[in-house]
Structures are given as structure tokens and as C-alpha cells.
């Protein structure tokens, strides 16, 4: 006949678990990867002649230059970064049909019918000496300009925040307000680094 077993002392279990817990606490890095997502333009073909570029009308290009001392020149005028967002929005929407701002083309878009889609391109040019911090600030403002426009459209049309919309409606908005930020071919003006 088996004798009843004595109870196993489980009080050291907590110690072992604590040990493991502390190990994982120390080694944990809970970093979520976040960042500004962008697409680079593909490399032009080698045999493609250089002057064969797509012609874009001057009024459809919103040039943003950043020089090596981190100053901005927007459409030929010096500007502070804080103004950039509003200027970019004004350029894309062109509410008063200013002849110096971007043109519109009526396009058929899902959910919206015929929409005047802006032909505007924001062209960002930086110098080799520009600081990365400044470059990110400018990028951020330009992306923010488009995001705010999309947000406005989403609120007006669907009465919801852009991120809460189903995917096909987001696609529609993306088509109505396409994000066109072009980073020009690098140039070196301000000297090396």
C-alpha cells in the first residue's frame, strides 16, 4: 500500500520565477519601429537621355530648398518652417484659383464622383550640408500638410477621422489628394559635407 506522499514544498517556485522575471525585465527592449514612410524614385535608365525629362509646368511645382545653414527658400522666398505647412496646403488646394499655384484636373474618383485633383508636386531639394534634423522637420511638415488635407476631406465627406475609415474609402481619399513629394536628384552646392 502506497504511503501518502508528503506535500512538495513549492515556496521556492516563486524565487525561480522571480529570477526568470528579472532576467526578462532586464533584457526587454520594447521598441516599436516608427518613422516617416517614404518611397524613393526608381533610378533613371542609363540610356535615357537627360533632357528627356517629363515637362512639368512651373506653376505646378512647389520648390522647397534647404541650404547648408538650415535656411528655407520656398518658391523663391525665405520662410520659417512653421509657415511651410500652410503654404503647402494652400498650394495643393489652390482655393482661389491663383494662376501661380497648382492646376486642377477633374478626375473620377470612387465615392466622390468628379473631383478636382491637384496636379501640384512638391519638390524638396537639400544641400549636402543640411542637417538631418532640419531635413526631417521639413519632411514632417510636408507630410503633415497632405495628412491634414486628407483628414479634412474625410471629416467633410464621411464624418469620421481618416484612420477610422475602411480601406477602400481611404484609397478614394488618397486618390483625391495624392501625395506627391519629389526629392530632386542630389546636387552639391555648399561644398562637401
Amino acid at each position, binding site marked *: 500500500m502506497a504511503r501518502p506522499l508528503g506535500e512538495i514544498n513549492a515556496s521556492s517556485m516563486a524565487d525561480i520565477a522571480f529570477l526568470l522575471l528579472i532576467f526578462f*525585465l532586464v533584457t526587454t527592449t520594447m521598441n516599436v519601429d516608427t*518613422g516617416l514612410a517614404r518611397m*524613393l524614385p526608381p533610378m533613371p535608365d542609363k540610356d535615357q537621355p537627360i533632357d528627356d525629362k517629363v515637362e512639368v509646368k512651373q506653376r505646378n511645382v512647389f520648390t522647397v530648398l534647404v541650404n547648408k545653414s538650415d535656411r528655407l527658400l520656398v518658391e523663391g522666398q525665405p520662410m520659417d518652417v512653421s509657415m511651410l505647412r500652410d503654404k503647402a496646403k494652400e498650394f495643393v488646394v489652390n482655393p482661389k484659383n491663383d494662376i501661380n499655384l497648382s492646376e486642377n484636373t477633374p478626375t473620377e474618383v470612387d465615392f466622390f464622383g468628379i473631383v478636382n485633383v491637384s496636379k501640384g508636386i512638391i519638390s524638396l531639394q537639400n544641400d549636402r550640408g543640411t542637417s*538631418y534634423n532640419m*531635413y526631417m*522637420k521639413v*519632411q514632417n511638415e510636408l507630410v*503633415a500638410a497632405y495628412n491634414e488635407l486628407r483628414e479634412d476631406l474625410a471629416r467633410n465627406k464621411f464624418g469620421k477621422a481618416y484612420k477610422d475609415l475602411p480601406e477602400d474609402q481611404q484609397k478614394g481619399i488618397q486618390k483625391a489628394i495624392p501625395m506627391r513629394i519629389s526629392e530632386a536628384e542630389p546636387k552639391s552646392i555648399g561644398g562637401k559635407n
Partner: protein
Amino acid sequence: MAKFERKGKKGMPAISTASLPDIVFMLLFFFMVSTTMRDTELLVRNRIPSATEIVKIEKKSLVSYIFIGTPTSKYQKLYGTEPRIQLNDSFKSLDAIRDFISSERDAMNEYDRAFLTVSLKIDEDTRMGVVTDVKQELRKASALKISYAAKRVEKIE
């Protein structure tokens, strides 16, 4: 008349610690699941800039990292203070980026290759020169989906 009196020295009953391991195990599992071991050692100073319009990178398995910044003080004797490029665990030259991208592509399964995202972790004090060079190399390697690593902040000061 009724009398309430303490009968002798009874003391408090001992609190049962039997459930302590359970609680600890619960915490343990949480940390085990959420842990990602840092697989590369940082050789460069890496303070990433902040931005408001950032998005999360959805799948970690599709991401390759390129670190750019001045070498940490330990390596400055050897490598100087100019911003340098770190791929995996060592300093690399610009030309190595193309090999790096193709090896990263080979390590993925075929279906995922088109979705390779390169996360550029660049120190905020870096000048754009080296960044532009890296971007040109990425274009040549046709790794066009990039993400400029940034922290989320509510407002940029």
C-alpha cells in the same frame, strides 16, 4: 453584561503566499512574449529625430536597418568622428549597401521580397551628404521603400 476580551495571544493568521508564484508567472509570461532581443550592438551614436506624422512599421520581419551617425566614443579612436554607416554589426562603406540589401533579400522568402522596407536610423546631427549618398545607393539597389526612423511627439518645438 457581555464582556469582549482578547483571548490570549492569538496573532494574525499567516497570509498565504501560495498565489505569489502565479502572479509572478503571469508577469514573466508577459515579458517573455513582449521581449525582442537586441540583435545588433550599436556602434554609432543614434539619437533619432522626432516627428508628428509618423507611422508604425507593420511587420518587423520585412525591415532592414541602416544606422548612420558618429561612432561611439569607444570607436572614435579607430574610426574618427565623421558620421559612418553601420550595417549589421560593423562599420561599412557605401559600396557595401548593395550587397547588404541583396543579402537581406536572399534571407527573405520570395513572396516577401517586394515588401522589403529599409529603416534609416540616422542620428539627428548628421549632415545630409552621407544620407543622400545612402539614398542613392538604395535607389541603385532598388530598395525603394524606406522609412526615416523617428520618435512620435505631439508637437515639434
